[in-house]
């Protein structure tokens, strides 16, 4: 697919905007791309739609791959699009296993060696993850893990708002 399932960019009311929408100057002429994706075993999509809107409001273009994304499709899309950030979200309780498996495949691609890759949602069936499981996800190649905690959304927004290399004029 070529992003046909992606949502049109909403035009948020400036008062509601949570990010520097509309502050792009000449230094930021090229908008940066974020891939938002579900994992292979997960059919949920409201989480992906919410994240797409949130990331778009931070001033990025989003390619939303949708639900039940097979590992090889995610790898192909990341290879082709060279995103500035990859966001994986899962809420069916199998995200930990799916995430461990697919991040190794992503990190095996030289072009994605330095690309920020994060995962969040309900990653297991027992609420917030143990430090050990978070540690294993980080060791496997994720730059951050936003598991099922009260401040996860705020923490993720903070992370996504200040991606390395972003034009200074676009920062909060």
């Amino acid at each position, binding site marked *: *697919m070529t992003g*046909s*399932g*992606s*949502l*049109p960019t*909403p*035009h*948020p*009311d400036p008062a*509601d*905007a*949570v990010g520097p929408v509309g502050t792009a100057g000449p230094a930021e002429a090229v908008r940066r791309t974020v891939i938002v994706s579900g994992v292979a*075993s997960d*059919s*949920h*999509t*409201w*989480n*992906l*739609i*919410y*994240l797409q*809107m*949130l990331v778009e*409001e931070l001033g990025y273009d989003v390619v*939303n791959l*949708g*639900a*039940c*994304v097979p590992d090889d499709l995610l790898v192909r899309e990341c290879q082709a699009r060279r995103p500035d950030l990859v966001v994986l*979200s899962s*809420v*069916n309780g199998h995200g930990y296993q799916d995430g461990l498996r697919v991040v190794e495949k992503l990190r095996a691609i030289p072009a994605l060696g330095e690309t920020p890759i994060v995962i*969040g*949602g*309900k990653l297991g069936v027992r609420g917030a993850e143990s430090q050990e499981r978070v540690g294993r996800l980080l060791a496997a190649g994720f730059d951050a893990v936003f598991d*099922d*905690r*009260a*401040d*996860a*959304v*705020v923490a993720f927004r903070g992370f996504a708002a200040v991606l390395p290399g972003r034009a200074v004029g676009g920062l909060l």
Partner: protein
Amino acid sequence: MGFSDAVRRLGSGAGLVVQPRMGFEDPARMRAGLAATRAAAAATVGTLTVDSFTRLGDLESVRNALAEGTELNGYPIASHPAETTRAILDGLASDDFPVQVRHGSAQPQPIFQALVAAGLHASEGGPVSYCLPYGRTPLDESVRNWRAGCHELLRAQDLGAEPHLESFGGCLLGQLCPPSLLVAVSVLEAMFFHGEGIRSLSVSYAQQTNMAQDREAVHALRRLCAELLPDADCHIVVYTYMGLYPRTPGGARRLLARAVELAVDTGAERLIVKTEAEAYRIPTVEENVAALEFAGAVARSLTDRRDGAALATHLEAGPGTRATDGGEVYAEAAQLVHAVLDCDADLGRALSAAFKRGLLDVPYCLHPDNAGRTRSFIDTDGRLRWADTGDLPLPPGTAAGGRRSVTSAALMSALSYVRDAYDRPDLASEPALRLAEPDPGPPTLEGAPR
């Protein structure tokens, strides 16, 4: 006796037939769940919900899980031998207690084959409603699979049974879909089944955000079925709210009671219930039985309370003849349905073409075959309306238009609208619970197949 006949007969005394969602891998547990459903103090229909590997057609993973003893999240009907399923149903399934198989699959052939082999004949889903919301199966492929699936189900006729299919079109993404599109898809899928030879049908509608609009929607559904499926044996099933469910026991019960009221008021024949555990996990058998009995009791009290004269007229004339025209929901749904029927004489091809052209377009649906140009919002009166109709064949002015913007914060509050409204009375009286409420985090969809 067909499933629709059985539902009508069961409901004629009780006012409403109620049904759970329930599926266990272990045959003994599955049988115990069905037995408890049958024994519940309400007019009940039994459910056998299939696991998610079977739903995806991944029967190898089912074999591995059964071999390793890893627990599945439903009954693997296509992997257990037919005798095992027959033994589960033996002495339970009958005209007095029909059992329906619920699954969520865009490739239903193995499931239908298995249920017919086990002596069953009723299931549900649809080429659109079990394709677009949940996965990546191309719509064309789902249409082909469902055509083949209907033919599998028709084999039940050889065994003397009347095959039944319920369209799941009244749910789609569970929330934030304007009712006219839910009604249109449900009717179109029922017409698709009918065209493939299925004569016993049900059409669905999932409770949304505004009672008056929900009533219009159920009446619109009945009116469209009468117009477009005059010779089918068709009944209506209401789904208790399929979006983010209230977290308080009081909120969960109030929302279920409201769904019962919707079904009874509009003459719907069947209701799928939700439990107090819905916001947290897959409910237990006991929680399901409690929800069935609560819903049955509410239905009886509403039926009893009705004006005797009106009730007599209602029973005499049948629920379909009540004078309600479906209002705005009917007008929109009829335009959508007829635009699709005009696409192609073959309804399967017409459905595919309609989605390609954006004549049907589910708001917020990420499936590659959905145009994704529509948007919806909850208006100040609680009605679900179009913020953007994309290429839907609806008159100009239907959408609120550019004044409306949907932000992530607005989406979150719309997704939580029903949960918050029904939880509020209990949270207000228990401040400790309110303080303990975590930030909702990214939304999930409890109505999604497992």
